């Protein structure tokens, strides 16, 4: 249609393609109010139910009613958390006929929560029936958002029998309403004795200008903040906002003097392997596994000022397709032989104390280096810590309110983010 004068497009249309002045104010006004309404309509709905630490009495029955096995469990875990040959899972499949799809998809808690939150919020499956999550900020977010299935303890008889009492009443989930421990670990310092010849004993070594550009720290704000507080002699578990700010200043010092190379997720262990860092904040078992698998000789130390102890926990996402076999797999890992086999490989603290005796028995059947190494593990304070070892360890701070946690995050986030 050729535009004749009579049929010129309406000014409204013309305004979209050309500059125009007429009626502009009226349009702007109506546009603004429409925009205002649109803005207010885009709120992000929360799933919050904070304070409800225990679900209603019938929640367990209600959740588990009608749930059936699909003979396949999708299991989300962390790297370096199982023998790559997966002997424990193979045994589970052989005994139950349930296939396990084991994926090392979790590298850090923050990104993991952010990744699955939208699906869980919409009531959709995240593709996993079982996941291993650390106690801390995101654990609480998972729990408070109602994203975790309440556990049916009638399906966890082995856990009831074999788990150490301490693991049945942890502060972040008393009574194991939503979770049972996978393993605990200690955050300390790892270093490469080939490049650092003097012994590393204290947290202050992470601030030593001699290692400029070769120091690694965790990007997880809780791990990072904890070390900032402990180097100042503060106890993270009982810390206040003033302590956080003091710790942040100390950490900023480490950064502004370029002592620190970078803030890492689980990739810190590769950075250590490649010589990108010489000394780094580290998780106890990783260093051991790295040495076994790559023939390196890195050292792990619990600093004089103390390390932190944390627990990684099995939990079932509320939208799991197969919670029935997922909970069976949870319980399976509490068998003494399975717990012993796992702990012997990953070198993290096992929640099953009877595993120690099992390991000693297994070692007796072996000979040579294998025997010595398994005996070492059975006596290792990193796998079976004694009471005196715990005295050196601190716990994570539990945040009472969302506001408190946000304050913490706003203090430490800008450090990690450059």
């Amino acid at each position, binding site marked *: *249609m050729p535009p004749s004068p009579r*049929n010129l*497009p*309406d000014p409204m*249309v013309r305004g*979209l393609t050309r500059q125009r002045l007429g009626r502009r104010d009226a349009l702007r006004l109506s546009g603004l109010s429409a*925009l205002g309404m*649109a*803005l*207010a*309509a*885009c*709120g*992000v*709905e*929360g*799933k*919050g139910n*904070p304070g409800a630490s225990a679900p209603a009495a019938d929640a367990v029955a209600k959740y588990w009613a009608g749930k059936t096995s699909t003979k396949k469990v999708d299991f989300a875990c962390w790297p370096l958390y199982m023998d790559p040959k997966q002997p424990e899972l193979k045994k589970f499949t052989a005994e139950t006929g349930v296939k396990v799809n084991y994926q090392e998809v979790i590298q*850090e808690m*923050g*990104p993991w*929560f*952010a*990744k699955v*939150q939208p699906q869980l919020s919409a009531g959709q499956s995240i593709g996993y029936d079982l996941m291993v999550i650390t106690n801390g900020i995101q654990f609480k*977010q998972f729990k*408070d*958002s109602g994203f975790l299935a309440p556990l049916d303890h009638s399906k966890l008889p082995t856990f009831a029998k074999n788990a150490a009492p301490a693991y049945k009443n942890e502060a972040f989930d008393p009574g194991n309403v939503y979770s049972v421990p996978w393993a605990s670990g200690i955050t300390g310092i790892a270093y490469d004795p080939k*490049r650092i010849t003097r012994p590393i004993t204290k947290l202050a070594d992470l601030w030593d200008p001699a290692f*400029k*550009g*070769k120091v690694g720290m965790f990007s997880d704000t809780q791990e990072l903040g904890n070390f900032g507080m402990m180097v100042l002699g503060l106890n993270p578990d009982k810390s206040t906002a003033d302590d956080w700010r003091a710790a942040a200043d100390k950490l900023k010092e480490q*950064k502004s003097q*370029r002592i*620190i*190379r*970078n*803030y890492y997720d689980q990739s810190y262990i590769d950075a250590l392997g*490649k*010589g*990108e860092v010489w000394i780094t904040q580290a998780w106890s078992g990783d260093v051991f596994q790295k040495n076994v698998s790559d023939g390196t000789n890195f050292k792990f130390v619990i600093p004089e000022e103390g390390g932190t102890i944390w627990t990684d926990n099995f939990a079932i996402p509320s939208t799991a397709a197969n919670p029935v076999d997922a909970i069976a797999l949870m319980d399976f890992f509490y068998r003494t032989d399975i717990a012993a086999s796992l702990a012997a490989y990953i070198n993290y603290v096992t929640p099953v104390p009877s595993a120690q005796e099992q390991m000693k028995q297994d070692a007796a059947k072996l000979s040579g280096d294998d025997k010595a190494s398994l005996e070492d593990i059975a006596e290792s304070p990193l796998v079976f810590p004694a009471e005196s070892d715990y005295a050196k360890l601190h716990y994570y701070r539990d945040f009472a309110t*969302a506001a408190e*946690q*946000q304050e913490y*995050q*706003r203090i430490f*986030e*800008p450090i*990690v*983010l*450059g």
Partner: protein
Amino acid sequence: MSPVRRVLAPYFLILPGGLWLLLFFVVPMVTMLSLSLQEGDIVNGYAFTGHWQTYLDAITAYEEQLVRSLIYGALATIALIVIAFPVAYWIAFYGGRHKPTYLFLLLLPFFVSFVLRTISWRQILTDDGFVLGPLKDIGLLGSSFHVLGTPFAVIAGLVYNFLPFMVLPVYVALERIDPRVVEAARDLYADPATAFRKVILPLALPGVFAGVLMTFVPASSDYVNSAVLGSSSTTMIGQVIQAQYLTNSDYPTASALSFTLMAVLLIGVFAYARALGTEDVMKVAAR
């Protein structure tokens, strides 16, 4: 055609494009603007409160990263012009019948994913890798010398990754130059340098102008290069936005930073177009 249909026809004509823009541009933008003005947390949800303070807080907390990103973007763009111009010039004037081959070779690495290529640089340049390792062993470099984690590594990564976006527009501009124009300049006693300065360069400037737009904006907001090749002292604003969205679920701060970055880049690009609008540049160059 009835008069009614005639009146409505233009509306129907813009309908597909208009709907497309509405759905994929206006809706996300309004959502993001709304998010930037909300308060709350991820567990209890975010609600719109018109909280402009978030912008001020976010800019104060991440001013350093914002400024750093613009500096890195600008340095990378300058380096790109310096590297891409001779490449494009050579292909356009000396490529002969192999021009398509050279262009293909230029694009060949870009058939591999952007992130993977950047990670492979990380392998090459790692502290004790096969490049730096031997140099350290023979004592040419100190044992703590490193390339990764420095601003140089990040800017070099940006230059590497955005190279075709500068070469191609410059090439297109140079390729269109009529060789007779250059011959005429020589006939009129211009030496090669003068012919280049007075004829070729002004005609190539629109290409450079387009190349700058196509590289400066994405380079400044890039988050991959700094995350893979950089360190905690090279963090760019894109990384902060990414982490706020995807690690901390702090949507308001992330959205506020996105809008701030967009505003800064828009102002910068408009100022650039204003000051160096191609026509004016050509007038100046032709003087």
